[in-house]
């Protein structure tokens, strides 16, 4: 008899029963719709045990890497422990080991934290007052720390706390990591061109993606477009250019709405620039990070330009109440 653990309860699977079947049979409220492995409403995450491959049919490489399965197709041969995919993961302490200004508005934090993560995922940082905000990870595990880029707002409660009160050596809480905007590398993906599009601190998760891809020996071209309103807001350009000087496959494009054009800087609208530079995105893997409005508009544009939906990875930043 196979038993699955879910939310502190044990469920015994009857013959031929799926995880979704047994959850519903016990009266547990669980989202579902097509019951045929298509709609992905009933995704669940394996916390312990082996995810049955048949229950991951049609999932993205990112979802598979995180142990997601379709509960309606999941008929595990062995016991499994499962959790809801929306669960934010464990909260851990993180020691601040460095705090530096990358520009007058962007603060870089480096944290020592004992958790697995992938560059491009995000964590929720919190303080003792119970305040917390999500930040993307710009580093990779090989660097030995979690790096976040914090846009500091004049009336941002949490960003002002980080900027004004937090000192190196102090401890924050870290929850997560979460998010599927990270690089994965199967044999056929290693040659594929990558297009990374980031606005503002949206460049942070893309730095994580670039570092992961280069460390994994990605062979296709990697084009990164870093966009902002003002040229002065392109705070990570020097770091990107330093990376590009030692990696021939990495090409950096800087686009600002306002500023002085130069060989390194395009002045104009990022949507038009992307459209003109890559009229067809067929076969290109796309990563999009930045404000929600940017991600939404750019995702549609990239899809209509021929990128496959399965190969558009996005992380939209949602503003918390100040």
């Amino acid at each position, binding site marked *: 008899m196979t038993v699955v653990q879910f939310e502190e309860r044990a469920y015994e699977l009857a013959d031929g029963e799926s995880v979704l079947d047994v959850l519903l049979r016990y009266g547990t409220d669980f989202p579902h719709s*097509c019951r*045929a492995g298509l*709609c*992905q409403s009933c995704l669940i995450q394996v916390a312990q045990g082996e995810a049955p491959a048949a229950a991951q049919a*049609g999932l993205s490489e990112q979802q598979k890497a995180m142990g997601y399965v379709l509960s309606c197709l999941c008929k595990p041969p062995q016991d499994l422990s499962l959790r809801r995919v929306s669960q934010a993961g464990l909260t851990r302490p993180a020691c601040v080991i460095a705090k530096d200004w990358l520009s007058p508005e962007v603060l870089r934090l480096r944290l020592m934290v004992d958790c697995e993560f992938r560059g491009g995922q995000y964590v929720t940082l919190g303080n003792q007052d119970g305040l917390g905000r999500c930040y993307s990870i710009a580093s990779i595990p090989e660097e030995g720390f979690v790096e976040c880029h914090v846009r500091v707002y004049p009336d941002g409660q949490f960003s002002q706390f980080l900027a004004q009160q937090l000192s190196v050596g102090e401890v924050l809480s870290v929850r997560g990591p979460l998010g599927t905007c990270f690089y994965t590398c199967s044999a056929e993906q290693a040659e594929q061109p990558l297009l990374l599009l980031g606005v503002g601190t949206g460049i942070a998760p893309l730095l994580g993606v670039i570092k992961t891809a280069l460390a994994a020996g990605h062979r296709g071209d990697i084009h990164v477009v870093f966009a902002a309103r003002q040229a002065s807001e392109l705070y990570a350009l020097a770091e990107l250019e330093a990376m590009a000087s030692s990696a021939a496959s990495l090409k950096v494009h800087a686009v600002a709405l306002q500023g002085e054009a130069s060989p390194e800087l395009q002045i104009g609208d990022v949507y038009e620039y992307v459209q003109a530079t890559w009229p067809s995105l067929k076969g290109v893997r796309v990563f999009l990070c930045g404000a929600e409005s940017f991600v*939404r508009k750019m995702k*549609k544009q990239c*899809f*209509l330009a021929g990128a*496959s939906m399965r190969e558009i990875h996005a992380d939209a930043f949602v503003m918390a109440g100040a």
Partner: protein
Amino acid sequence: MSVYEKIGGDAAVNAAVDIFYRKVLADDRIAHFFDTVDMDAQHAKQKAFLTMAFGGPNHYTGKDMRAAHKHMNLTEEHFNAVAENLVGTLQELSVPQQYIDEIVGIALSVKDDVLNK
């Protein structure tokens, strides 16, 4: 053998779904139903729809179809637009006409439920 199996099963749906979704997003008659915030969720729904239309595995009932479309105020024109895009997608993939006819037949069989007639 269902038409779903004849045209290549899940791989056929995967080949069709991006093409179909691009077509409906570009179709002014129906784009507003599909142009939602969560494109990934919408994409999964298109895949479920195509699998059903191809006669593949699904558990949709007439009742599900009615409930899902109930508040959308759909008309014959909307249904026909979806059907045209479906045919256009299949033609683009060089699916033989006899299979296209079968698929259109399946789509027509849920028409009354979709339009809540």
